[in-house]
């Protein structure tokens, strides 16, 4: 009964074979990517497509490289807006989700407002908010936060009410306080839901930041795309777009890795308990 059988299970997974597996899995996507780039490059060259309509990949790389260090400045400006808006959204969404999940009255008060807010396209909201808050970073962060808020609130509220019935009864039978029940039972049960909301919101915050930069900014990747296209510098606009994609991927992966590193038990929890 007390034998440590779980320690003695043979577990054959040398590091080298794992890397081989990763390399093999990455092979096909890489080949497809290279093939597409080649078709693009040769297509543009053979048909002499002007670079202000569709630049070749080589031209994009050359012109974007020509922007120099300023590119990092733009990327950093966008990153600040995204992360700032995202963190604000987290801070606001949590109390809202707790309120929604703990009282029907509060839920009825908050949900309709959220739905109305979510139904207004951010692109329409951005110019109005800029008038209200000025052209500074406050407006941009607000726009990013507003668009990221909805999925966070909804998924956190769902998660908080997802704790199994027995678990809630157990907690009640222990005569625990409401706050302890929230911290010890409902919040941990909500972690998988919270992270799915956090992942969706991360991509939305990026969209919000770029929209805000289209409307009012003097820096940022969105601003860079907007001005480059206005001056027919399409290769630079493409370059900014690619950097934007990279920033988005890194941010999304960061959230995903935080979940894997700190909440490994939460992965698969939501499915296994329903």
């Amino acid at each position, binding site marked *: 009964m*007390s034998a440590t059988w779980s320690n003695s299970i043979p577990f054959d997974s040398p590091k080298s074979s794992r890397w081989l597996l990763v390399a093999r899995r990455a092979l096909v996507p890489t080949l497809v990517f290279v093939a597409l780039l080649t078709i693009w490059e040769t297509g543009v060259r053979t048909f002499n497509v002007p670079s202000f309509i569709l630049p070749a990949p080589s031209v994009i790389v050359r012109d974007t490289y020509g922007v120099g260090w300023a590119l990092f400045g733009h990327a950093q400006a966008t990153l600040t807006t995204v992360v700032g808006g995202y963190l604000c959204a987290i801070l606001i969404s949590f109390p809202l989700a707790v309120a929604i999940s703990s009282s029907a009255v509060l839920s009825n008060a908050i949900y309709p407002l959220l739905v109305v807010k979510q139904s207004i396209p951010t692109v329409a909201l951005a110019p109005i908010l800029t008038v209200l808050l000025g052209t500074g970073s406050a407006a941009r962060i607000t726009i990013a936060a507003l668009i990221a808020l909805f999925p966070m609130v909804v998924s956190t509220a769902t998660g908080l009410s997802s704790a199994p019935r027995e678990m809630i009864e*157990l907690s009640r039978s*222990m*005569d*625990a306080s409401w706050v302890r029940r929230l911290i*010890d039972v409902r919040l941990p049960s909500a972690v998988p839901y919270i992270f799915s909301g956090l992942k969706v919101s991360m991509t939305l915050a990026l969209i919000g930041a770029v929209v805000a930069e289209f409307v009012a900014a003097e820096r940022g990747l969105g601003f860079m795309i907007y001005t480059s296209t206005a001056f027919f510098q399409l290769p630079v606009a493409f370059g900014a777009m690619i950097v934007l994609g990279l920033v988005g991927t890194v941010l999304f992966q960061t959230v995903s890795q935080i979940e894997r590193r700190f909440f490994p038990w939460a992965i698969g929890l939501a499915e296994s308990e329903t």
Partner: protein
Amino acid sequence: MEVSDVSFAYRNQDGTHMLALRDVNLTVQRNEFVSIVGQSGCGKSTLLRLLAGLMAPNRGRITIDGDATTHPRRNISLAFQKPTLLPWSNVLDNVLFPFRHQSRPVGRDEIARARELLSMMGLLDFAERRPGELSGGMQQRLALCRTLVTEPDILLMDEPFSALDALTRDELGVELLKICAVKPKTVVLITHSIAEAVLLSDRVYVMSSRPGTLCDEVEIKLPRPRLPEVMRAPLFQEFTTHVRDLVQQHSVRQS
């Protein structure tokens, strides 16, 4: 513990009521082991939730030591059919959960008690593991450790062994009896296993279904301490047959 003329109805979604318990009367003496057997869906779990103070009866009165139960009390521990463990805490922290959850300090004594229970249940080697790494039987043993760690006066158990195989079930039941022999407590066990009820209890109540009511009471006059060998005794067979007849009699009346 005294239950007098208790009735309880659930409210359905369409506003109608479904009577789950009708005129239930039950008296449990201090440190007595009482089982309630009946078919599934007869309202046994409802009765247990009322005893735990999780719900209030629509009619009648439930008193414990003379006080009406209106809310959960800390000297009562509840055990469920599912182990209901915290997947994010390790085994030891799961046992200590009641203390933390009640904002009580966890000192050396509490940890020592938790480790003692774990070792009694053969789980001490797994103290640092997560519940997900344990088998079903081990998880249920762990849940039992958590139920006992606060040294409750009253233990309310809702088919805690029903998901286990017969061997593990008897073994755990006997383990529970040993613990009750050392630190006497009042136990109310809900079960659909007649053998389990007879093996463990001082008295067995038979419950009829829809609406649930306690219709018969059998005193199990078997000597203690009871070991699994008791189950081979003719007297044991006599009691199980008697209880089985009563259960069947009441279910026949239903159909």
